[in-house]
């Protein structure tokens, strides 16, 4: 204690030390942001016409949220050292629940509520199967992925459904409208990102998420309800998958039963590129959101640079493998 009082003249030293500590602590996020800027600069140089126009940024802000909204809660699932592959089908299952409810009640809001509820229940089911029955989450959620896609195909008879009725409610401008030049899905991504950040870093729930993922045995010994924490993270993914599915369908004003199919790869890539470890215990919302936009930038960037779009999948796959491999190497180095 005394040394702190006496150490006043030392403050420039402690200042630089706290600066290096700051750098070390946020090194991953800083590096990721720099990588994003680098990729963007590269595309800007390759294809200045595309990347100097507003249109590309409008479309990025509009479409990135379709998977970023799920990548945010999925980050929590990965931090607790679990996995969820079912969200692609839950996106469609949520909108199917909307569609059925609307057909019966002719009420858009009730339908929207049913959509969120259906997603939440699907997420809870994942959580219960994993936590209460002890099924590895990778296997359990591949199962529920097929299950919910099957349910959607059965209830829709494989047919798409128009959703133009939503246009007459405030839900339409609220979810896919614009504020000035900014599309609403982007704003929702930032809003949910901030909420998730807050709960992860400033709330007991987030503290328990980190502890559960880091060492589930220690957390249980110290009285953390690890089962409930895990179930809650799965429930959040379900809820947000349904929400995201609704936003996508509203944007198209049409519900395809195959909705969500193309989002598995870029959602997972966002979480892993964002620095969330498959080994549990570490990860940030900031990383996931920045990584989602980097991932989203790659596809139009490749096309605008004059390469084949087929490269996209190869690059996404490479990003997942490389970031997971890097995590394994870093983990061995520091433990």
């Amino acid at each position, binding site marked *: 204690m005394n040394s702190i009082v006496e150490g006043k003249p030392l403050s420039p030293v402690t200042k630089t030390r706290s600066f290096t*500590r700051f750098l070390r602590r946020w090194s991953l996020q800083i590096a990721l942001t720099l990588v994003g800027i680098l990729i963007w600069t590269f595309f800007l140089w390759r294809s200045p016409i595309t990347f100097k126009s507003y249109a590309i940024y409008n479309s990025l802000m509009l479409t990135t949220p379709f998977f970023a909204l799920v990548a945010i809660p999925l980050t929590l699932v990965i931090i607790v050292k679990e996995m969820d592959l079912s969200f692609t089908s839950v996106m469609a299952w949520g909108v199917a629940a909307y569609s059925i409810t609307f057909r019966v009640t002719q009420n858009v809001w009730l339908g929207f509520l049913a959509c969120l509820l259906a997603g939440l229940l699907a997420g809870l089911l994942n959580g219960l199967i994993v936590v209460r029955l002890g099924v590895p989450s990778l296997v359990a959620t591949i199962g529920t992925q097929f299950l919910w896609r099957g349910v959607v195909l059965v209830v829709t008879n494989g047919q798409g459904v128009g959703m133009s009725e939503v246009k007459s409610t405030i839900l339409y401008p609220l979810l896919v409208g614009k504020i000035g030049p900014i599309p609403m899905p982007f704003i929702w991504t930032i809003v949910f990102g901030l909420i998730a950040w807050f709960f992860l870093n400033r*709330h007991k729930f987030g503290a328990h998420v980190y502890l559960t993922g880091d060492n589930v045995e*220690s957390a249980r010994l110290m009285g953390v309800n690890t089962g409930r924490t895990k179930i809650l993270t799965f429930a959040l993914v379900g809820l947000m998958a349904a929400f995201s599915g609704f936003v996508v369908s509203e944007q198209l004003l049409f519900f395809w039963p195959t909705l969500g199919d193309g989002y598995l790869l870029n959602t997972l890539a966002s979480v892993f590129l964002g620095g969330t470890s498959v080994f549990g215990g570490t990860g940030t919302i900031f990383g996931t959101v920045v990584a989602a936009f980097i991932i989203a930038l790659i596809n139009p960037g490749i096309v605008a640079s004059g390469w084949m779009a087929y490269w996209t999948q190869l690059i996404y796959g490479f990003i997942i493998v490389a970031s997971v491999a890097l995590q394994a190497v870093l983990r061995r180095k520091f433990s």
Partner: protein
Amino acid sequence: MDHLLQLKNVSKTFGEVTALHHVNFEVGSNEIVGLLGDNGAGKSTLVKIITGYHPPDSGGEIYWKSKKMDNLSVPMARDMGIEVVYQERALADQQSLWRNIFMGRELSNRWGLLDIGGMTRETQKLMNTAMGFTSSAVSPESSVGTFSGGERQGVAITRALYFEAELIILDEPTMGLSLTETKKCLEFVDGIKAAGKSCIFIDHNIFHVYPVVDRIVVLDRGTIAGMYMKNELSMDELLERLYRVARTGNLEDNGKAA
């Protein structure tokens, strides 16, 4: 005699394995009990029943200050004033020091919002006092995984101490510690006695246990094999009996067996 903690007829089976078999065990107030026994004797299982981590098989009863505790849970045991320093330290390696100190008992308001400032301040205070960390490289934000074995034990002990326990359980606290770190740990047990609190001290090493305890309980293959007040027998006698129990399952000579 007034018991702080009393277990009556406690058994615990995991599938086909019986870890504890009709155990009666008690701890008096301001008593230091040494719990000895070989690997697999059931020491850790006994601890985990006392802390509410495992429920005992039906028929077993747990009393705290003569009050029967049903459906004991980890948070309940902690609220009662039972703290444990686990063998494996029960730390989360990638998390910061303050998150480890307050693991499962984060300071928060009634909405669950964390009082991070309060927790880092308390941690800093504990570092300077109880933990004796002097290096400026360590801060409340340092992750525990970078600490040495002794430092990690310091964190685990300090955590138990901070929450003002009435009964502190040390599960093989000297495992993997250096000579000076072990000495510090044993002084800590003396400190518990002086503070008027109770302690269960579990260790393989009777040379660590004998000097600091009031009473010794020997556990063998899930049952209580013997119980001695320290003044009843010398360390050499105790050692001999322990060897015998490891070989034969009997503490005393066949002729004198209880």
